[in-house]
């Protein structure tokens, strides 16, 4: 009996979908637009997160050692720093490497080249480039570097230049997160209201039929279920359409993203691929739940016959 009723509900839903095709298409269109809008928010959030990560990635502490500090001492300091839990990586660059890099960098500047020739020995010391796991970790690493035992060995450290940038990024990240949360929340509420009203309008147009069904002995469930199933159809079709449109938009955006990130690689399609289940799955579940709630509420009014 239950299976018979369910199969009839599905059949009625399909019939109603086709026989009211314009209403069905209008419903699908609005739900698709809602989906696309939500996904735009996801794209903006992913791009801004990646942009912030890309900037964060460029921040490090460069420790310039005195020329006379030997390799063993630098290695010792490196080993000491590596014991800190906040350290992500430390790259060692010898004085010879630094000189070679310096020469390459200034190869067209004759004055610098001649000045280097005048000097009998390498004026540059070794360097350590330290990256922290989190932006907040840098002050603690700096504290460790500022150890009096090392201060005579270090000629300069570059971090002070980044402090302002880091503070600014932290502030931006925090604001983006707060703003994103508020916008996302508002958007989800607006989207829910749009879908809710779309479903209500669709059912409103069927209100006389609901009354007739009741008068010939249909139970509330028998009347309600085809409408719910039909609206679930619309939601699933809208989701599939939205996925197609979103991927099309992503393929248009992708080539411009590399230039936006200053050459850094950011694969937005890859991001969507790897998070597809969460992004689209949650939206689909959301729309199905919303459809069930709005269909049930909207139809309830006309079931009192």
């Amino acid at each position, binding site marked *: 009996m239950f299976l018979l009723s369910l199969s009839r509900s599905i059949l009625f839903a399909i019939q109603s979908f086709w*026989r*009211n095709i314009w209403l069905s298409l209008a419903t699908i269109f609005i739900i698709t637009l809602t989906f696309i809008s939500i996904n735009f928010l996801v794209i903006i959030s992913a791009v801004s997160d990646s942009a912030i990560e890309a900037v964060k990635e460029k921040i490090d502490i460069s420790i310039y050692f005195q020329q006379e500090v030997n390799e063993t001492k630098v290695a010792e300091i490196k080993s000491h720093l590596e014991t800190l839990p906040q350290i992500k990586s430390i790259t060692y660059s010898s004085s010879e490497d630094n000189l070679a890099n310096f020469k390459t960098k200034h190869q067209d500047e004759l004055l610098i080249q001649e000045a280097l020739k005048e000097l009998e020995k390498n004026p540059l010391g070794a360097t350590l480039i330290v990256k922290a796991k989190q932006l907040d970790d840098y002050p603690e690493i700096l504290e460790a570097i500022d150890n009096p035992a090392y201060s005579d060995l270090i000629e300069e450290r570059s971090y002070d230049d980044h402090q302002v940038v880091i503070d600014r990024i932290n502030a931006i990240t925090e604001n983006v997160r707060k703003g994103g949360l508020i916008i996302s929340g508002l958007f989800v509420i607006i989207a829910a209201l749009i879908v809710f009203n779309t479903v209500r309008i669709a059912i409103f147009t069927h209100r006389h039929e609901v*009354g007739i*069904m009741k*008068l*010939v*002995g*249909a139970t509330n469930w*028998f009347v309600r279920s085809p409408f719910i199933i039909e609206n679930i159809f619309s939601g699933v079709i809208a989701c599939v359409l939205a996925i197609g449109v979103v991927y099309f938009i992503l393929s248009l955006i992708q080539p411009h993203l590399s230039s936006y990130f200053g050459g850094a690689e950011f694969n937005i399609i890859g991001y969507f691929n790897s998070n597809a289940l969460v992004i689209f799955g949650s939206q689909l579940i959301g729309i199905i739940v919303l459809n069930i709630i709005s269909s049930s509420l909207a139809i309830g009014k006309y079931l009192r*016959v």
Partner: protein
Amino acid sequence: MIHLINVTKKFNRQTVAVNNATIHIEPGEFVSIVGQSGCGKTTIIRLLISEIKPDHGQIIIGGWDITKIKSYQIPLLRRQIGVVFQDFKLLPKKTVFENVAFALQVSGTTRGRINKIVPQVLKIVDLEDKLDRYPQELSGGERQRVAIARALVHRPKVLLADEPTGNLDAINSKEIINLLLKINDFGTTVLLVSHDKSIVNALKKRVITMEDGAIVQDQKIGKYVI
């Protein structure tokens, strides 16, 4: 078969739609309820299908006291009573076959049985060649015949007809009344609500006359006299 005992129904406290009405209808009877618009005829039908509940009194149909029927029992009641309305109440997006079949589908009848019964019932109302038509493709008389077929499909013991000829011309009206008489001949109790004098007078059957919600006359072979 149908018993209304001291039934009163008020709307908005002041409007008394049915006032202390008592009606006893025996199985197989053909009864007309007549009266002017607003006299409470249609309220009687709405009470009998539990669309509304009485404020006072008792309603019994086929031995079932429906006075305080539970909402989950209402579909079961409606599957046992055939109802025909003035405005036909057909599902516009379903064909003739589907409209009649729907009344069986709601009660869980199998497809095989539906495919057997529906053409038979549509043959009784002379619409066996219009199974695939939609209501808007039919004349008024044909639509009402579909509605009668739908009302009959459960083989009800009672058929309630609320102004079934109200939207029809004289020829179609006569056809519908003849159909109701034919159904009554098969043993179904028919309760006809009408304000059409010529139809009621031609029937020469029992007539109950209502005025301001009260039963003012009940004649075995009656006439519409108001």
